[in-house]
C-alpha cells in the first residue's frame, strides 16, 4: 500500500470525487475543504485494507478497483462502484471492524481519519463532518431499507410455514 496526502490540485481525483453520488450536490470548494484531512491510498491486488475484529477510526471511499468483503472467511459481498463507502461503522459507534476488506484488483481509495478531522480547525471540522455524516446517513439508509425488506419477507415466509 502506498499513501499520499490528498492533493486538491489533482484535477483527475477531483473530477472523480465530483461524480460520487454523495458529493455531486456539493460545491467543489466544500469538497476541497472536507478533504483536508484525507489521504489517498493505492493497494495492490490481495492486500488487506480492514481486518475484522480490529479497532481503528478510518472511513474509506472507493475511487476505483474491486474489493471483497469477508466475515469469518466467508465472502459476503463486493465493492466496486465509484464512491462506495466502507468502514464508517467504526467512526459512528466505535465498534470493532465487523468484516475484512481485501483488494481483488489494484484499487485506489480515499481514507479519512477521524483523529485527523478532530485536529482540523473548528470550521474545517464542521465542513468535513457535515459532508461525512451526510454520506454515512445516505449509505446507512439504503442498508436499513434493504434489511427491513428482508425482515418483512422472512417474517411473511415464517408465518406461512407456521399455518
Amino acid at each position, binding site marked *: 500500500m502506498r499513501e499520499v496526502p490528498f492533493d486538491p490540485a489533482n484535477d483527475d481525483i477531483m473530477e472523480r470525487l465530483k461524480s460520487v453520488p454523495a458529493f455531486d450536490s456539493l460545491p467543489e470548494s466544500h469538497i476541497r475543504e472536507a478533504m483536508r484531512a484525507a489521504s489517498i491510498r493505492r493497494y495492490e491486488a490481495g492486500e488487506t485494507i480492514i481486518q475484522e475484529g480490529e479497532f481503528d477510526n478510518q472511513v474509506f471511499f472507493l475511487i476505483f478497483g474491486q474489493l471483497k468483503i469477508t466475515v469469518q472467511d466467508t465472502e459476503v459481498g463486493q465493492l466496486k462502484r465509484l464512491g462506495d463507502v466502507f468502514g*464508517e*461503522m467504526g467512526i*459512528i*459507534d466505535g465498534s470493532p471492524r465487523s468484516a475484512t476488506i481485501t483488494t481483488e484488483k489494484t484499487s485506489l481509495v480515499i481514507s479519512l481519519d477521524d483523529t485527523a478531522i478532530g485536529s482540523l480547525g473548528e*470550521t474545517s471540522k*464542521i*465542513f468535513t*463532518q*457535515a459532508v461525512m*455524516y*451526510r454520506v*454515512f*446517513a*445516505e449509505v*446507512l*439508509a*439504503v*442498508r*436499513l*431499507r434493504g*434489511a*427491513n*425488506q*428482508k*425482515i*418483512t419477507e*422472512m*417474517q*411473511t*415466509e*415464517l408465518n406461512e*410455514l*407456521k399455518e
Partner: protein
Amino acid sequence: MKEIPFDPNDRETLTRLQQMPIFGAMDEERLPKVLGMAMLRRYEKDETIITEGDTDQAVYFLIMGRCSVSIEGVNVNAISEIGDVFGEMGIIDQKPRSATVRAEKPVLCLVLDSEFIERLEGVDKLAAEALFYRIFSEMLAARIRDANARILYLEEKLEECSMDNF
C-alpha cells in the same frame, strides 16, 4: 392529532429536549434557531403518524410515549426511548416512507420539516448538518444492528420450521 408551534419559553419541554443527544449537543445560540422552526404534536393511542408509501418529509423526535413500526402489516421495530428519531430517512434520501409508524399509547413528539436545514445559513447550516446527520447515522447504525440480529433470528426459525416440515 393536535399540533402547536414549539414555544421556546416552554422551559419544561426545552429541558426534556436538552436531555436528548441531538439538542443537548447543540450550542445555546443555535438551539433556538432550530427549535424556532419546530412543531409539537400530540397523537392519541392508535393514531397513524407516518404511512408507508407516503412522500411527506418530516422528521420526528420522540418526547413521550411509544410507537410501533410496521412494514406491509408486519411489525419490525418499536420506538420508545426519549430522543428516538424517526422519519429521518425521508430527509436523507427523499424516498417514499418505507414503514408505517403508529402510536401505541399517547405520544408527544417534536416535528421538523425536511427544509429546516436549508433555511439555516453559513456555519449554522453546516453545524446543523454535521450534528443532525451524525445523530441520524448513529440511529441508523443501531437500527441496522437490530435488524441484522432479527434477520439471524428469523433465519434460525425458518431453518427449524423447514426441518419440522420434513
